[in-house]
């Protein structure tokens, strides 16, 4: 399973990713992506395609898919 990694030093919080991945992400008080469940950002297999699209379309290149540990 993959996890969505956000480089917080790069993310500008315009929220494109939360539009592409509403099942996984919500905007926080300031527009930055947060896990909808409040937990981690493990990407369910069913959302793998949307997650890849979010990664490729993030204007700040702040998103990566990384192998979930453990």
């Amino acid at each position, binding site marked *: 399973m993959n996890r969505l*990694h956000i480089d*917080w030093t790069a*993310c500008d919080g315009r929220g494109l990713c939360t539009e592409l991945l509403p099942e996984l992400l919500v905007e*926080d*008080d*300031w*527009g*930055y992506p947060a896990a909808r469940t*409040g937990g981690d950002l493990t990407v369910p297999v069913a959302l793998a395609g949307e997650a890849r699209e979010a990664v490729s379309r993030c204007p700040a290149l702040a998103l990566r898919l990384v192998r979930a540990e453990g």
Partner: protein
Amino acid sequence: MTTSSVVASESRLSSGSGHGPLPALTGAEIIAMARDAGITGRGGAGFPVWRKLAAVAAAGRPAVVIANAAEGEPASGKDKALLTAAPDLIVDGLELVARAVGARTTYLYAPAGAHSSLRSLPVELRTAPDAFVSGEESAAVAAVTGRDAVPADKRIRITESGAGGAPTLVQNVETLAHLALIARYGPGWFRAAGTADEPGTFLATISGAVRRPGAVVEAGYGVRLGDLIAAAGGPTGRLRAVLVGGYHGGWVPADPDLPVSRAAMARYGASPGAGVVVALPAGSCGLVESARIASYLAGAVAGQCGPCVNGLPRMAQTLSDLALRRVRPGLPAEVDRLARLVTGRGACRHPDGTARLVLSAMRAFDTDVAAHLSGHCLAEEGR
């Protein structure tokens, strides 16, 4: 650790020179020695030293080692004391870890104020800015390579790719000094102090309502909280609570019998961390003091990560409202929500540590929270 400011319950690091030459150990022997001693990093995170050494060594490329004496935490003075008291042990430890990980380049990363006394040491000095987050590992890496001392994203570990792309080990100077002694006296000697799970001694900086605030004391893990405070001259009066682990730590009861160890502090959401102990007098409001610390930490954000830059000031402000009795419905729940919202959402652990302190205050001072919500302050009313 000048003799005037230190009462050493266990004086290992402060026992002066005369330890004799470093034994000729191989890299593998040094890693095994660190593992057998069970030594953990003394910079705060408490990670097993041998694992970090092994990870950097396993990269199989020429490594870089940074001895970290940045100590941005305002209530901590032990690394500065150690730089004065035992610079030779730090240099020895640096040589050992460099050998263990195959490093040709080593740095001593220390505040500018400490440099004049360190110039004669056979090590390259780098300046640690006086900022809370400057001691964070990736900030140290950035600083020695000439960039701003701010934390970097953690997708790639510095043990794989740190300073100039080299596998990099950042190790606190106290840890290095312990290693220099373990190399001479052995893991068994190291384990004679502390507990079976948390072996060895640590340096504590004790401040707040004690007779000798700022005292640096060496003791074994598991030492009674009362004995640590006594080593700083004892309390100036009745205590309300004690902050353990520094500004990213947690509040524990002022119980003299409480052992200072990870195991005993865990139930309060605290840990010995880098050995910072702050005693809060009975006449002070724990919420006011925690709000002051949270505001300080909110002002120390490195200005990079949205949730931290926005969330920490908001969280500190909300706690301040509660502390100053600017009460509105749902205030404690809002503090709680913000603490959870910022946790895990930054390039470094600064938001996590700040949230930990705030949540710990809400638990430790729950009677004060209730009083403030009804417009009273127990501290003002003399409890």
